[in-house]
């Protein structure tokens, strides 16, 4: 994770936000329809 952040000059917060937004887009596009819990 640290390597990924350094590679793309991202802070931990930014990486978390981008990951969450990417997941939101994937869910919105219907790629993931249901997430079991």
């Amino acid at each position: 994770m640290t390597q990924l952040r350094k590679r793309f000059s991202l802070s931990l917060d930014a990486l978390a936000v981008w990951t969450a937004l990417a997941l939101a887009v994937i869910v919105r596009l219907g790629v993931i329809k249901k997430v079991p819990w």
Partner: protein
Amino acid sequence: MATAAIPQPRLASFPERLFEPLPGIALLAAIGLLGKFIEQRIALYGKTHHLHLPNIEYVLWAILIGVVVANTVGVPKVFRAGIATYDFWLKTGIVLLGARFLVGDLALMGSVSLVLVVIELALAITFMTWLGRLFGLNRNLSALLAVGSSVCGVSAIIATQGAIDADDEDASFAIAAILALGAIALFTFPLIGHALGMSDHAFGLWSGLAVDNTAEAVATGAIYSDIAQKFAVLAKTTRNAMIGFVVLGFALRWAASKAREFKPNKAQFLWTKFPKFVLGFLLISALASFHVFDKAQTAALGNLSRWAFLLTFAGVGLRTDIRAMAKQGLRPFVVGALGEIVIATLTLGLVLGASRVAHF
């Protein structure tokens, strides 16, 4: 001239380093899932044997398993990089949880939280500074304990350490005290909440206001109930958002005490210290409020947030080092513990008072 070749350690390539956290993440998942399995098995056992067993959430099992593993067999090096990602999962989980808050509710509940947070900050900083002085702790350690217990635990302590030029030793004292007290809160707060018959809303607010580190605050809420976890995240996020103001206040005081000028631009300083994941939380909440996600998609995002928290809670247990905490000495711990008891009592009073006024 011939030079002797000195063998250099081979540096791992970028893809190799990218895979480095995977064993640790797998361990987090395994512990979290084991916690979930134990919770389900106990519930099933109670149901089949017609027994009324208390529902102990997977959160507590995951943390307990993590604590036992870390403090008995220990964590091999191969897992460490992955375990360190627990903070990333926490922040990702909080941002995704934004989908379960509508902006209107957020404004309403957030304003109640904000008022309570401002009162809590003033009380906690004043009391902890006074208590540190009473116990003869040095000024910097008192300041770090005050910030750690008033704002948001470890990240606030680290931010303030840089701003007031405190020693690493003081910071590690303060961090150990805050983490130890957070671990104690995980077990005691839900018991107190149930004994007082607190609503999920009130208990969540109390956890978010009184438990210092974000992961422990969210876990304490989650042990109580799903709704309590939501409100714990809200109150804790509001507290986190205040970190810049508090650190700036301490930095200005430190500069004045050293007769130095505070050089950085204040607005830029505030922005640097502002936890940016709060903006992601608000953005997802705004998208949910504008119906960008339908009901099933909101539920899917909520469950993704749960999975992220499952990894976080396993990490909370695994990085709890009881021996290291014991080594830190008694005085900072006593100051922290006394402070936390008083702050927890005051915030409990605040939340119960607010719940009567705002009917939650």
